[in-house]
Structure formats: structure tokens, C-alpha cells
């Protein structure tokens, strides 16, 4: 996967001046520039929705890295995506504490409700549904996150209402 991405040798995406400036501010916070790589990738993904190979190449140029080094980091961390996601990322925690309180049933109900399986995006691109490892809310289970926001102590109707309320 990674090797084919590199072999395509895409032209680097041109990043906006604002984004470049924000990345430079991150770099200034670290004793060595590379320390800011994760922060830079986060900024880029927040703006562009994902980090496709041409974007990874642009980031690599800023840090003086080989694109493969950036892809290696990208693929190590769960929060980075190389492909576009739905407008809303809905992730149900299915680790033990949440499963003991019905998280797996909840996920199946959401799959049925949205007509997609975990890991898929609705055809209109509105919602990407997925499961997630423990999110540090075990005492308030079951729970899911929508993007950055936690929603705790859910049941089927509450979870469906949350998803239906997404623009």
C-alpha cells in the first residue's frame, strides 16, 4: 500500500499560506523541527479532510523528509486518514467496559439505521460509521464520539437521534 503510494510520485499539494504559517508556529514550539510533524499533519487534515499522498509529499518537503517517512508516520496513527471520510465521523467504543453495557448492540442498531456496516460511509457522504477502542469514558458507557465530541450513557434511541441530527 505505502509503496504504491510512493511509486505514484504525485505532485505535491500546494498548502495555503495560513496553513504554512500555522505549521511554522508549531515547529517553533519544539527543540527540533520534526517534533511538530504530528501537529502539522493534524492541521493539514483538519483543513483538507484527509492527508492524500500529494499532501503527504507537501508535508515531507516542509520537514525535509522523504515522503515514505511521512507515510510511515501517517499509517502508524489511527487518527490520520489518507482517504476522505464522511462529513461526520461516528465511532462507537466497543472495548470491554462499553460492550458490557450494550455497545455492540448499539453499533449493530446504528448499522441498521444508517444502512451501512461499520467502516463504511453513507452514500451521500454524510456519516462514516466505525468502532473504536476504549476512549477513556468507561464509567459512562456505552458511548460514542462524533468527530471530537463525546456522547456518553447512550441507548439505542438516543444514539439514533444524535446521528439523525447531524447536518
Amino acid at each position, binding site marked *: 500500500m505505502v509503496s504504491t503510494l510512493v511509486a505514484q510520485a504525485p505532485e505535491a499539494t500546494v498548502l495555503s499560506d495560513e496553513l504554512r504559517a500555522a505549521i511554522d508556529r508549531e515547529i517553533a*514550539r*519544539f*527543540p*527540533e523541527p*520534526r*517534533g*511538530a*510533524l*504530528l*501537529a502539522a*499533519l*493534524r492541521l493539514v487534515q483538519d483543513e483538507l479532510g484527509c492527508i492524500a499522498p500529494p499532501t503527504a509529499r507537501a508535508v515531507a518537503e516542509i*520537514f525535509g523528509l522523504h515522503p515514505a517517512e511521512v507515510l*510511515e*508516520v501517517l499509517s*502508524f*496513527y*489511527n*487518527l*490520520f486518514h489518507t482517504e476522505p471520510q464522511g462529513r461526520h465521523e461516528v465511532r462507537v467504543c*466497543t*472495548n*470491554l*467496559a462499553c*460492550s*458490557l*453495557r450494550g455497545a*455492540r448492540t448499539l453499533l449493530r442498531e446504528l448499522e441498521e439505521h444508517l444502512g451501512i456496516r461499520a467502516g463504511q460511509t453513507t452514500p451521500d457522504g454524510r456519516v462514516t460509521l466505525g468502532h473504536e*477502542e*476504549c*476512549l*477513556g*469514558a*468507561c*464509567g*459512562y*458507557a456505552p458511548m460514542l*464520539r462524533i468527530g*471530537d*465530541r*463525546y456522547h*456518553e*450513557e447512550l441507548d439505542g434511541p438516543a444514539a439514533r437521534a444524535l446521528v439523525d441530527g447531524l447536518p
Partner: protein
Amino acid sequence: MGQTAPHVCGYLTERFSDDAFGSFAGYREAGGYETARHALNRMTPEEVIAVVKSSGLQGRGGASFPAGLKWSFMPTDDEGPSYLVCNADESEPGSFKDRLLMERGPHQLLEGLLIAAWAVGAETTFLYVRGEYAEAASVLARAIGEARAKGVLGPRALGSDFGHDVVLVRGAGAYICGEETGLLESLEGKKGQPRRKPPYPAQRGAFGRPTTVNNVETFCHVPHILKNGADWFRGIGTEQSPGTLLFGVSGHVVRPGLYELPLGTRLDEILFEYAGGVPGGRRVKGVIPGGISTPILPAGLLDVRMANEFLRERHTLLGTGGIMVMDETTCMVRVGCIASGFFRDESCGQCTQCREGTGWLDQLLHRLERGDGSDGDLALLGDVADKMEGGTICSFADAAAWPVQGLLRHFGDEFAGHVSARGCPLDQSFAL
């Protein structure tokens, strides 16, 4: 906010439901940062370390290493920068205390960091927050900004000659970055693969410089210890394990949530008296005492005090204090599957034992759960787990093997039952 307030509070959490505690003004008004001011202006680093050493404070990140002793490993004759790292990567399933400590009490944490930084001579603290913890990160960013504006952080922290700043760093979703050297790699902008030790972080840590790494909760105890004294701290908890601990209780209990209680509180007391026991009049079947890595205890062994010196006698550990409770409807093979799936996905893959072993455990457990397992598979399961222990670059492989060993020790019959019944003999309507 209100919904997640702890059910039982101690000195760390008593002001969690008061919004003022989270603000700079509110924290200052109640005497906050006065302990750090005293330490930075009137105590030597050696004196601070001596107090923390004699308090007996043990790290709260899972390994229970003595904090004062760790601080004393930092070289004192080194020219050039050294660093403090706050491990806020909390991702052990069952654990949620660090998130609430950051969201509710950011200044309590910052005060602890400042005192520790003075003690170890660090010019900068890197506060590495788990990538998914957006709320905690934004609360901390605001608190750091306030602390800088008010001269708590900066070239003359709290009016002393000590210059210090805190740099907030966000992770990007990888359990292994909680292991301290995996964290250091991640901090340097790399994959979070743990480093070989030695050298230890105190010798070569972040960016090649001497570094001390501690957990969020560990730092939060520090201002209280300096303010009230080592003897006060030793008066709480057990002789070997002093202080309170934030227990996170989850699973099949009436009142799940956070409980701040002295170390050494009995597990059955936490479960039945504080957390209200198992709902629906059902019976408890097993309890994981300290996060998913720690071996399970069956119903008959819950009369144990929650401190390592007692838990070890029962072949388990305190871990991070994440107590997960399972009632009689729970299939223990299923529990094993959930644990093994997690460890298989999160292994960083450097050590063969770990990479291959976590895959094997996961396959064998799923085969047993489906009813396709044989007696040979069952024997192999125990064998693989035993062979994974020891000898890897970090203790993730041990942490992956322990839950399986615990399940086999106490629920071996249930595992054998899955072989003879060719599937799960439990009523599936209650299944996980």
C-alpha cells in the same frame, strides 16, 4: 460536566464539581500555586525530591514506580537542557481518571508539573495528551495561556529565578504511545515504537536529553504532598502504598464512575458498598482490578485490598485502578476475545514474540468462541501466553499475555466447556 463528577472524593477531586476550580482565578483564590511558589523560592530541588521520596508516592501510570526515586536519577552535572514529560496518553481500557483530572483540574496538574520541573531541573515540560482527548486539550491550552499571562510560567516562574514553560502536544491515536519511550519517539515526530532500555529516559530521553516521565495523576498528588507533608501522605493508604487513588469503576455495577479512595480499600467494598453492587440482583462473576492488562479475579477472591502488595498474592496487579465488573451472564471467552483483539491491533510490531503472539492469542480465542476449538487449541493458548512473557522491548507483550493467563487460571472450566459444547454454553440473550 455534572454527570461525570466523582461519586466519592478525596483531596484530588474534592473541588471537581466547583467550576471555579478549573479557572485560574478560582484556583488562586483557594490558595492554588502557593505551594509551588514556596517550593520554587524557598526550597532546593534536593529538598523537594527528599519530601517526595519520603512520602512514598508511587507512579500512577500503571507500574507503581517510586516517583521521588525516579526524579533522583536525573543527572545534576549535565550542561544543556533537560525535560519533564507528562504522560497524558491514557488509553488503557478501563481507565478514565487522567481525562477527568485534566478536564476538571488543569491548574492542579500544572502546579504539580511546575514543582516536579523545579525538582528535576527541567527547562520545558512536554504535556503529551492522548489524541482523542480534545476537551482535555482545550481546557489545558486555556490554563497554560492563563498561567503564562500571570507569570506562573515564563522566564521567572512565580517570581523565582526558575524559567519554565509547558508545551502541549497532542497524540494521534496509538495505545503504545502511552509506554514512555514510545511516547518519546512520538514526541519527536516519529512512529511510537518503544526504545530499547538502557539508556533510560533520565540518561537519554526526549530529543536525546535527560528526561523524567510521569503520569498525570502522579503529578497531581505532588502539590498536596508538599503542602501537607510526607507524614500526612503516609497516613493515607497502606504502609507500602500511601495516598489515595482514583478508581474508575465500569461494567456491571449500579453506579459506575470515578471513586477517589485510599489505596488498600477492599475491592468488594468498592464494588458492593460504593458502586452499589451488580444491577438486577444478578451475581458478580469476575472483576478486572486495574485495567484490561491486569489478570481477572473470580467472585470468590474479591475480599482483597487494592494495593500491589495484596493483589500480587492473588496473581494480579493494581495497574491503573480501572475496575471492570462482569456479572454471571458474561462469557469469559468473549472477554478474552475483546482483550486479545485490542492487543493484536495495538502491538507496534517490533518484537516477533509480541507481533506473532498477539495474533495467535486472538485467533485461538476466536476459534474457541465460535465453537471450532479443540483441546489442543486450549493447551496452545496457555503455551503462547506463557512464551510471550519477558524478553520483549517493552512490557506490552506481558500486558497482552496476563489477561489470558488470568482467565485460564480462574475460568479454565468455562474455556474447556466451549470445546466440549462446540460453542458458548451461556444464554446468548445476555451475551456481550
